[in-house]
């Protein structure tokens, strides 16, 4: 029996196990929307702006490990997806974006709502397709999902002209893909693994830097085994947070620009670095020439192009992190590294990095800390970008696998709310907290309507300091306190929430924080808390931009340590 292009696409989505589509309709994609009711197993969530659809699909993908799907019409619908697609690309998130396109006879004629979206997204997708023949559509859907989730995951765009949705073809969903140019290496090379094991076994001061690749590969147990067996301290990248329990005795937190001072000191002092599923981003390395000056680097990554791209590597191992670690662990000799660990613990004591200073007013760090305490860490945290993101990374103790979702590579303000929505749709039984800044929140605030219409019970904490805080911090520290275009007025967020139909509270004092968080947790549906925090609080530690990781500002001069508020797991408080 022949099916229409729209039906073939839906059949393909069903076969790929898709349950949710985040989208926004329009003229060119209307035949597909008209077909959706025939497939009730595909839940469509109507966003309020296509950027929200792409971020939601990304958040869904990161929270579930499944491919997230978003769709939009041609022209502006498609271009509105672009930021979200780029965001998914930089953070290796498996997303399939489907766009309507003008009918084939109109392509290239500057028709109404025509834009060359496959051309536009060329550098920000793992691969993309313009479907010119309905007969090729089933194979393209199959390939798109395969490419999105295998190897180094990434976004795939399928651009379908309106008349291809209407054309008919026999539907045969392929069982295999034929991609001669795409064969990801999964097993690490045994000789390289042997070399790596030798380096690790001989190391005096080994250090693991773990990234999001560990999470994507699901190599939590293998990473833990490696660390414990050879007593190797573990630091993570921002996106690696949640790949190793932060309350573990071998965990030394996040490295990089706003990483823990002791984590960066460990990088500086290490003699062997085992970099696992990470890509030496400049925010993680600081000045590359000053990065890990004493270390031989073992780099394990599934993407061969990441090896040696930013940092020279002694032992490259291309492969899937889980498989490589499995093989490597068999060759690792149990050791102690007692002195080295003692050194790190000393540094951790001397440079605690997550101490919250004594302050009358409400500090953002305190808010994050209390969200951690009330949730007992049983939550997925989805952040915006900037100060709120760094405080959320620093002051919540991530023990659960994959419990932080954040825009790392692209640094997309406005990611927080739609991504949290996607995460909650994917994990309805898990508490999802959206940690937003008052700046970023206003970029995608319209998705509050989606949250209400689709009954998505996200809890929203706005860290409201009346500034574009991270930019202001840079202006304060490096631009002579000239606050150009960073003071920011916002609406009354509680009233805004109320207008959308979401209950909310404003919190100004420390004593109100915990009751407000509890109230949010008790509420069945979404809830918003507007935390009015100290306006000029800065994120510390901070590595001076463009400098090595050792060039670290640990805090304002007047910082006073309050010992009991240092970051510790709940059980230790």
């Amino acid at each position, binding site marked *: 029996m022949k099916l229409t292009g729209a039906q073939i696409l839906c059949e393909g989505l069903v076969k790929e196990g898709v349950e949710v589509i985040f989208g926004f309709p329009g003229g060119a994609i209307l035949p597909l929307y008209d077909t959706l009711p025939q497939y009730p197993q595909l839940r469509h969530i109507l966003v309020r702006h296509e950027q929200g659809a792409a971020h939601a699909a990304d958040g869904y993908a990161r929270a579930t490990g499944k491919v997230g799907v978003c769709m939009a019409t041609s022209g502006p619908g498609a271009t509105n997806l672009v930021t979200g697609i780029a965001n998914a690309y930089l953070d290796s998130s498996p997303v399939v974006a489907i766009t309507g396109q003008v009918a084939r006879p109109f392509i290239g004629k500057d028709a109404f709502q025509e834009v060359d979206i496959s*051309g536009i997204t060329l*550098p920000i997708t*793992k*691969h993309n397709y313009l479907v010119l023949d309905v007969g090729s559509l089933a194979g393209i859907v199959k390939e798109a999902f395969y*490419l999105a989730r295998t190897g180094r995951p990434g976004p795939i765009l399928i651009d379908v002209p309106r008349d291809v949705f209407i054309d008919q073809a026999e539907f045969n969903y392929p069982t295999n893909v034929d*991609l001669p*140019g795409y064969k990801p290496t999964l097993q690490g090379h045994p000789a390289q693994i042997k070399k790596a094991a030798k380096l690790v076994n001989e190391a005096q001061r080994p250090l693991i830097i773990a990234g999001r690749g560990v999470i994507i590969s699901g190599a939590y147990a293998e990473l833990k085994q490696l660390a414990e067996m050879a007593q190797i301290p573990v630091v993570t990248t921002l996106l690696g947070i949640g790949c190793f329990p932060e309350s573990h005795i071998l965990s030394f937190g996040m490295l990089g620009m706003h990483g823990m001072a002791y984590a960066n000191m460990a990088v500086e002092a290490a003699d062997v670095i085992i970099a696992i599923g990470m890509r030496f981003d400049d925010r993680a390395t600081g000045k590359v020439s000053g990065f890990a000056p004493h270390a031989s680097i073992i780099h394990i990554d599934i993407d*061969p*192009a990441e090896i040696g791209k930013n940092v020279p590597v002694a032992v490259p191992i291309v492969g899937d992190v889980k498989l490589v670690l499995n093989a490597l662990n068999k060759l690792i000799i149990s050791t102690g590294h007692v002195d080295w660990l003692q050194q790190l613990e000393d540094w951790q004591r001397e440079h605690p990095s997550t101490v919250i200073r004594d302050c009358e007013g409400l500090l953002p760090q305190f808010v994050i800390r209390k969200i951690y305490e009330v949730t007992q860490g049983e939550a997925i945290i989805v952040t915006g970008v900037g100060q709120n993101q760094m405080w959320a990374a620093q002051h919540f103790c991530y023990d659960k696998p994959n419990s932080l979702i954040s825009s790392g590579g692209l640094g997309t303000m406005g990611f927080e709310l739609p991504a949290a929505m996607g995460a909650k749709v994917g994990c309805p039984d898990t508490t999802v907290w959206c940690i937003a800044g008052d700046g970023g929140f206003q970029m995608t605030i319209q998705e509050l309507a989606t949250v209400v219409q689709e009954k998505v019970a996200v809890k929203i904490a706005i860290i409201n300091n009346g500034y574009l805080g991270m930019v202001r911090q840079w202006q304060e520290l490096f631009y002579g306190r000239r606050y150009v275009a960073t003071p920011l007025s916002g609406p009354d967020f509680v009233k805004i929430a109320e207008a959308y139909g979401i209950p909310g509270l404003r919190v100004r004092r420390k004593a109100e924080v915990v009751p407000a968080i509890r109230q949010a947790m008790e509420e069945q549906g979404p809830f918003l808390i507007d935390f009015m925090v100290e306006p000029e609080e800065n994120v510390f530690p901070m590595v001076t931009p463009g400098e090595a990781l050792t060039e670290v500002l640990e805090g304002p001069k007047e910082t006073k340590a309050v010992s009991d508020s240092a970051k510790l797991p709940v059980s230790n408080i």
Partner: protein
Amino acid sequence: MTTKHTLVALVEDKPGVLTRIASLFRRRGFNIESIVVGRSEQPHLSRMTIVISGSTAMVEQLRKQLDKVINVVKVFDITEEDAVARELALIKVGATSSTRSEIIQIVDIFRANIVDVASDSVTVEVTGDEDKIDSLCSLLRGFGIREMTRTGRIAMTRGRPRVATSGETIV
């Protein structure tokens, strides 16, 4: 150290592949000296020869990035290999009755051909490596080069093929 590298890529013969590769060069900031695309011995694969100047590390990064393009089946750097490299040029040179025979002599020495003769010009076709074409050009410049087109380098390793029909590398 910057040297000239020759990369050979086998790519799927699909629409947009050249754009993907050109876009990659631009985005990653690689400057290519020449790129030649044409059919290969395999029906669904095109063969590209890319010449690029850069350090070994930079070219290796380019090779890996190229290899990541889904439609690129195989890329190899044949710079260090024993290979035949050729370029074709068509050169239209000003010629008068008094200079024509001198031009023909030069063309003969270079084993090039004259493919068109007009009252005031001749068109020379020459095949060879870049140096040969460069030297012919410099000799002909004195007569006035009116028009020139060069193909850029194509290359192939000597002896056994690097790439079998299956697309697998033979080592």
